[in-house]
C-alpha cells in the first residue's frame, strides 16, 4: 500500500497538498511543544528544560516503531522509503557545524520557522542566517565537494552496522531513551529556572 506517492496511489499534486497538511501538523506540534522558544530549546544543554530531548526521542521512537509495525503488517514497503545516504565525513563535520549553530543561535531550521511564525524576531534573523549559510555552501561548493563526497558508505542501517536485527536495535534504543528521560527529569529538578 504505502508509500502512497511512490506506489502512484495518489497524484503528484495530491502528494504536494498532503505535504502542506503534514507541514501544518509538524508546525502545530512543534509550537505546542514549546519549540518556538529558543530559550526553551537551549535549556536542554544546561539541564533546566529538556523538552528537546523528550520530544525528539519520543518522536523518533514512535515513528521507528510505527514503520516497523507498518512494514510487518505489509502496509508499507520499506524498500521504497527514502533513506539518506551515509557519507561519514560530511555527516560528522556537518553535524558538528550544526551543533555549534544550535548553541550559538538557539534554533535549528525547523524550529526557527516555527518561532518566526509566532513573531519571534530572533527566529526570523536566524532564518536569514540560514539562507546566507546555504548560499555560502553553494557558491564555494567546489572548495568542499571533496569533503562532501568523502567516505560514502551507501545507505546502511545502524542496526546492520551493529550486527543487530531492527527489532532488537529498536528495543535497545527504547531502553536508552528511557534512561535519558530519567536523567532529564532529574536534571530539570536539579537545575530549575523559575521563568524564561
Amino acid at each position, binding site marked *: 500500500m*504505502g*508509500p*502512497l*506517492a511512490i506506489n502512484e496511489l495518489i497524484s503528484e499534486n495530491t502528494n*504536494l497538498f498532503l505535504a502542506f497538511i503534514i507541514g*501544518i*501538523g*509538524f*508546525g*502545530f*506540534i512543534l*509550537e*505546542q*511543544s*514549546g519549540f*518556538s522558544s529558543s*530559550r526553551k530549546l*537551549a535549556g536542554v544543554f*544546561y539541564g533546566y528544560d529538556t523538552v528537546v530531548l523528550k*520530544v*525528539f526521542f*519520543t*518522536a*523518533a*521512537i514512535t515513528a*521507528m516503531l510505527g*514503520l516497523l509495525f507498518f512494514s510487518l503488517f505489509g502496509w508499507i514497503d520499506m524498500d521504497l522509503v527514502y*533513506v*539518506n545516504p*551515509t557519507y*561519514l565525513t560530511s*555527516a*560528522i563535520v556537518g553535524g*558538528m557545524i*550544526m551543533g*555549534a549553530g*544550535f548553541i*550559538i*543561535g*538557539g534554533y*535549528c*531550521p*525547523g524550529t*526557527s520557522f*516555527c518561532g*518566526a*511564525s*509566532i513573531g*519571534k*524576531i*530572533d527566529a526570523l534573523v536566524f532564518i*536569514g542566517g*540560514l539562507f*546566507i*549559510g546555504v*548560499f555560502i555552501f*553553494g557558491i564555494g561548493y567546489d572548495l568542499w565537494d571533496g569533503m562532501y563526497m568523502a567516505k560514502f558508505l551507501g545507505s546502511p542501517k*545502524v542496526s*546492520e552496522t551493529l550486527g543487530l536485527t531492527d527489532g532488537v536495535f529498536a528495543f535497545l534504543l527504547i531502553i536508552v531513551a528511557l534512561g535519558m528521560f530519567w536523567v532529564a527529569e532529574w536534571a530539570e529538578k536539579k537545575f530549575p*529556572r523559575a521563568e524564561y
Partner: protein
Amino acid sequence: MAKSKERKVRSYINPYLGGVLLGIVLLAANFVAGRGLGASGAIKSTVVTAMVTVSPSSAEKSGFLQEFRESHAGNPMKTWLVFEMMGVLVGGFLSGAFAGRLKLKVEHSPGITSRKRLLLALGGGVLFGFGSQLGRGCTSGSALSGMAVLSLGGFVTMMAIFGTAYAFAYFFRKNWI
C-alpha cells in the same frame, strides 16, 4: 495585572505527548511520500531558485546546482519540502494564535541585549545553514527522519549535533542562563 495576562496564555503540552504526536506526523510523511520531514531542503530550493534567477550563467557552472538537479528534477520550488515548510508556518501560527502566544519580540536571556541576541541568531543561522548542506539535512531531515528509518548517517549526525552543542554549551552559557 501581569498575572491575569499570563493566564490567557495556554501552557505547552506534555513533551512526551508532543513526541508521540510528532512521531505520528513523521510516520504519516513516510506513509504518504516515502520520505521523512525536513526543513533545510526548502531553504536549499529557495537559494537554488534565487541563484538561477539572479545569475543564470554562473549558476549553471555551479556544482551545487548540478548536485541539486541530480536529486530534484523539475522546478526547485515545486518540491515536497517547500510545501511542507509552508505548512509549518501555517501550523506554527495557528498553534500560537490558539495558545495566545502571537507576539513580535526578540527573545533573549536577561544577561544579554537584544542586539547581541540578534547577532548570535544570525551567526548561528549561518553555521546551521552551511552545516545542514554539508550534513545532507538538518535536525529534522537528517537526524530525526534518519533515525526513524534507522539510517546510520542519521544517528551519526544526531550525535554530532548534540555532542558539539553540549561541548560548546559552557562557553555560551551567559547567552542562555
